[in-house]
């Protein structure tokens, strides 16, 4: 079995309408993969920058996988939430990103979107916030069913990841 280490951080998010944000993240992978060490999911703190356009989380990611095959390489599922001045939480957007395959240092921007409603619903979102949510959040990575959605693009989540692989050359894998 080969092993993969993913060490890095979710740096922050930018390009969203409001900046008081937090991020829920989850790592999804195929059945051939197993997490040996590290948290597979988590939630960052709420960052409320006063004048900067980017919310900074610097949330650490430290994962150790063991795998039997290349299928189902791990991916990130992200949800960016907004907390307003009254303490209400609303879901801003969903995001998805493959964990890079080649070992080394990667700076990635994971883009996010949210489901778009009818005109009335969009007006409502403008005034009181809160858009419709996906019935199943895992739809984000199921490429066969996404065509049913209409979406609005939101902001980006910035990731910095170091990938370390082990024992893949023994099985003839080249990155």
């Amino acid at each position, binding site marked *: 079995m080969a092993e993969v280490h993913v060490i890095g951080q979710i740096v922050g998010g930018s390009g969203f309408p409001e900046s008081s944000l937090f991020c829920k993240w989850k790592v999804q992978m195929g059945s051939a993969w197993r997490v040996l060490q590290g948290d597979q999911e988590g939630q960052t703190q709420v960052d409320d920058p006063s004048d900067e356009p980017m919310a900074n989380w610097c949330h650490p990611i430290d994962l150790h996988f063991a795998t039997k095959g290349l299928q189902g390489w791990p991916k990130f599922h992200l949800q960016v939430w907004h907390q307003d001045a009254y303490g209400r939480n609303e879901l801003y957007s969903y995001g998805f990103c493959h964990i890079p395959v080649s070992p080394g240092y990667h700076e990635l921007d994971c883009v996010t979107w949210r489901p778009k409603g009818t005109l009335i619903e969009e007006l409502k979102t403008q005034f009181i916030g809160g858009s419709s949510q996906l019935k199943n959040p895992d739809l984000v990575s199921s490429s066969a069913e996404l065509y049913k959605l209409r979406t609005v693009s939101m902001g980006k989540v910035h990731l910095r990841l170091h990938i370390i692989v082990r024992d893949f050359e023994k099985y003839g*894998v080249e990155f």
Partner: protein
Amino acid sequence: MSNSVDNDVISAIYRSHDPINNFKIRVKLERLTSNALLPSLHRLKIEDDLSRLLGDDGKKLEKAKASRTETAQALNETKRSEYEETVIGWQQKLFSRFEFDTYGKGVSEGSTALERKYYDDIQKMKVNHKQPGRIFTYIEGDPHCFANDLEYFVTDSPNDDPSQLALAVDNIRRRGTNRSRLQKNNLINEKPTPSELREEHYATVPHQTMYIMADLSDRIEGASAQLVVIPQPPNEHVLCTIRVYSNGTLILEPDFNNGKMAYIVETGNVNNEVYHYYLEHGSTPINMEDLIKERKLFREVCLRQQTHLAQIVGNEFDSPPPAVLKLNVFGEIVSGKNFEYDDIYVYYCLDLPDNWYAEPTMIFSGYTHTASATKSTKHDDVVYYAHPFEFELWYKPSPGSADHELPRMPKIFFQVASQDSWSRHRTEGYTYIDIPSLPGFYDEEVRCWRPRGDSIFNELRRFYIGGSNELEDISYVSIPKQFESEKSNTPLSRYGFRTVTTGSLNVRLNVVFQSQSIAVEHAKHRTAYAANRYGFDAFMSNINSVIDAFQQAKKRALEVRESTLQLLTPKAPAFE
């Protein structure tokens, strides 16, 4: 390491994981007199060493004997000239004369627990007729410790004031064990106590201190002590400061000096006397058996952890069949930029050239969601997709192909289309991307174009009611399928095909190759490297030449045998 002549009164740092209660230090204190007839301990020590060195010489031996009597004499003298030796354990309280008198006076209502305990100890000492000596200690919690401000002043300026940092760091006395798990709630402490403020904000480990002191005030001998009560300010000097941290660090200031020069301390009295002292490490060492057992235990624990992890990981891995290359592509359509209309989606499909195989259950094409532009970019119209796709393909060269012929890599075609709120459907662009022939991570931006048609009516129709010219065969975007199958010598000509440049797509690809021959090469490289290092090549070539010579000799011998056989075999008689 250090010069034995030098007297470095600096701190030494020791590290140990053994429990600190086993620590013992031996202190030898002696007053230095100027009387040369009574040899000092130091001089005796030097003579002792010399006599050991020169022990073979018979003449010197006699002198050594003489010096032994001198030693005894000197020791007797030293008893009088105030030689003192004690072995002190960690946080062991020895009383000074002053403390003996103060604490021994009695217990009152307002005495603290410490005072009561000291009083009891002193009573026990009185019972055993023990008197306090010159060497005493201050341990954790002794009130006089702070009164003498032993900890804070490092310079000799009379106005030395410890800073906030010094006060805080020195006063950290953490009692409980470290909280290893974070609390889930109540992360914010609204009203921290001053000690909590100190503990959480200063980066030191909890520590304990102990001082070994010498009481160098004048002694009043005998019975006169009872009669005359002259109040004397206690003349105390620090001999040694021992600080122990909870992570096993031990800081000793000054360091042990057995075998080196003695440390000298002068009293500030009228008759300025000089004392010198030695510090020795007096803990009982661990014996070899226990040490070996401990090391074995540690090694076993580490080994067990390693094997456990290796067991979980295991040894299996999916491998493709031999002589077949497996290609995995993990990619995503990230975003689209600067298309003419909003609410656009992307149709993608994978095109497989010859000799590429895939499982029938694999999905080769798909549609993204219909996305509307983000408001975060000011100058560009950007739509975000973050749409994943994953392909697993096998390449097997055809039987008639040349050796090491490079494979034709598959292509992914993209068609961008828009559908607005009035259901007008328009084509926004076509593009394609080659799957790269080297594995790795790729972040590509591909530009798109759309067909325009010859007359203006196409554009008008596209604008007003939607519907535009679409490609019948999406492979026209790269090299058309029809063209390929013709195999004629005419060049590909797209003359007359009008297009309009539209936006661009950002696509990320992760390309991974896997094959058994790569594994074999990897293994080969490693052994070849090792062989070269040991010069096995020369060895092998020698063997080869020997084998060659042997083969030659064998061949010649066989030839000779053949020829002799031919000579000896009777030929058919000429006459029948």
